[in-house]
């Protein structure tokens, strides 16, 4: 059977049953975040789309939705970066190379990579938002000629919280990608920008109708970034965001991730601003 068939068949017949997976690499990358490289049983590829997520199981501790941070073009494994923020993720942080976990998925709708072909891409990441966006950035790098100009704006609270430091240094060096970074509060060694991510947007030079703006971050950040992108005249259906919600099943049933009538796990987590606009009040990320 083809890999995709195996995954689709599993999803159809035993949607709640996790597949066995092995951690092949695990390391703390900041004080609170740990990076994992994971191999599915029989080394089958996850075959995800950047922006999709998996449900990670630790038996006895439950299950949680985690964004995939590697690109589908990284073959034979996939990667997760997880902040320790509760019982489940604390336990996950105790996992090391060689340990086995359960994986279901991939779930949800990823970034609209097929529609983004040929367009300029402006990526705006706030804090942990860089995690799902790393999947997209790596995908773009591996398929660089499919996209126009690419700019990345990254913001986080302090330099200590900066994720993927080695990689971002490399992004800074690459001439075909513009990379800009800012922190809310600097430390003595910090030489970059200081201030909210929204301060970086007005200075960016784009051709709005040819640009996709992709935003991931905490709800408070979306509101202001989306306003800035609208001011830049990026069309509403080209502003793309990925939302975080509580999830239990990934199948559009359990109800936790619902925004009004929409199940984020199936219809999202990636939405265009055009979609968000239609919500009447339950979407915290909607621009005011």
């Amino acid at each position, binding site marked *: 059977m083809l890999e995709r068939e195996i995954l689709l068949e599993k999803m159809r017949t*035993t*949607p709640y049953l996790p597949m*066995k997976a092995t951690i092949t690499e695990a390391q703390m990358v900041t004080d609170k975040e740990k990076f994992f490289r994971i191999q599915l049983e029989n080394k089958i590829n996850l075959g995800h789309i950047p922006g999709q997520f998996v449900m990670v199981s630790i038996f*006895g501790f439950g299950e949680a939705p985690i964004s995939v941070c590697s690109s589908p073009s990284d073959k034979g494994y996939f990667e997760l970066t997880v902040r320790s923020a509760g019982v489940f993720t604390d336990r996950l942080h105790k996992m090391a190379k060689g340990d086995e976990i359960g994986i279901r998925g991939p779930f949800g709708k990823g970034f609209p990579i097929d529609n983004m072909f040929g367009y300029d891409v402006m990526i705006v990441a706030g804090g942990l938002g860089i995690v799902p966006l790393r999947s997209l950035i790596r995908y773009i790098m591996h398929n660089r000629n499919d996209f126009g100009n690419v700019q990345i704006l990254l913001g986080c609270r302090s330099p200590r919280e900066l994720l993927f430091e080695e990689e971002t240094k490399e992004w800074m060096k690459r001439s075909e990608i513009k990379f800009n970074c800012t922190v809310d509060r600097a430390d003595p060694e910090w030489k970059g920008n200081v201030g909210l991510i929204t301060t970086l947007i007005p200075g960016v030079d784009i051709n709005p109708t040819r640009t996709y703006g992709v935003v991931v971050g905490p709800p408070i950040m979306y509101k202001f970034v989306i306003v800035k992108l609208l001011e830049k005249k990026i069309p509403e259906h080209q502003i793309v965001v990925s939302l975080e919600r*509580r999830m*239990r099943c990934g199948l559009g*049933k*359990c109800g*936790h991730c619902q925004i009004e009538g929409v199940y984020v796990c199936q219809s999202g987590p990636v939405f265009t601003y055009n979609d968000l606009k239609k919500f*009447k009040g339950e979407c915290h990320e909607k621009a005011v």
Partner: protein
Amino acid sequence: MKYASLKKANLNDWLGHLKKKAKLYAPRKKENLFVFRQVKEVEDVCLEYIPTVLPPKKYYFPQKEKLFKFSSQPFKTAKAIDKFEEFILFGVHTCDIAGIQCLDVVFRDAPEDPNYLNRKDKMTIIGIECLKYCDKYANCTSMGNHVPRGGYDLMMVDLGEKFIIHINSEKGEKLVTGLDYIKEATEAEMSLLERAREAKKKIFKEEFIGPLPKVYDTFDKSFASAVWKDVGRRCVACGNCTAVCPTCYCFDTQDDLELSLDKGVRYRIWNSCQMDDFAKVAGGEDFRKGRDNRQKHRYYRKFKYPVDKFNRYFCTGCGRCTRTCMADISLIETVNSLLSEEGLQ
């Protein structure tokens, strides 16, 4: 045979027959309320009942349901349920049958839910039509569920001396054929049934002050209504309304470990959108703060969202949420407040 007739005197014989065919669940009295229970003694079955505390949902979408068995050292998973048993739900009101139809729609929607569908495959439904109101809390007429609308195998109507049984499926037909006390209904009996239905029209009146499409339109416009503030102010967030609802299906998952700590079972358990952590993520953000917003969500999940998604109202009109509410929040009152507010504007 399309309609059969059964003398009341033979009801227990038939129940005894059904009990031998499969696990039989039916309503019975429990203190001053009613519950669905497995039938041990056919005499316990009570067909004149107001909606049971819990809908029969507990048999096809159990409160705590095994998803799979696991072992963590070494990592292994296994089926938790090898075989699903045949069962008969007996004496189900038409409102609860509507509830089953709603859950069918939900769990058949891709991706399908095999746990539900496996149970549903083994289910036989024998309904009973209400000829009078259970109490003042029901809004079945407005929802159109006071009369049978399919979704059952057999439907009984109490005509005094006898039950007329509508045979709606092959599965149902098998349960009434070959029994000397169940005969094809005569023309005289059929006209009795028609008369009962006519009489019913005088008893059952729409409980909402507007027709259903108007209710839908009103919900479309009432997201910011003050009615929600009032409902939220009274709500104590106990979650009773969602637990007793035949169409509430939100769930959580839970791992239960054996004492060895390396083996266990993953369950799915009922959850309620009325709980304050229902939409809270690990980072602390709560995406549905406030009892007003959570109550509003419950109502929208009955009168708006499923209509958009499945073209079906998810309120069956059984009245359980109102009957069970400790804060006297009444569904009929809430919907009528929205309707009258909308009318005033």
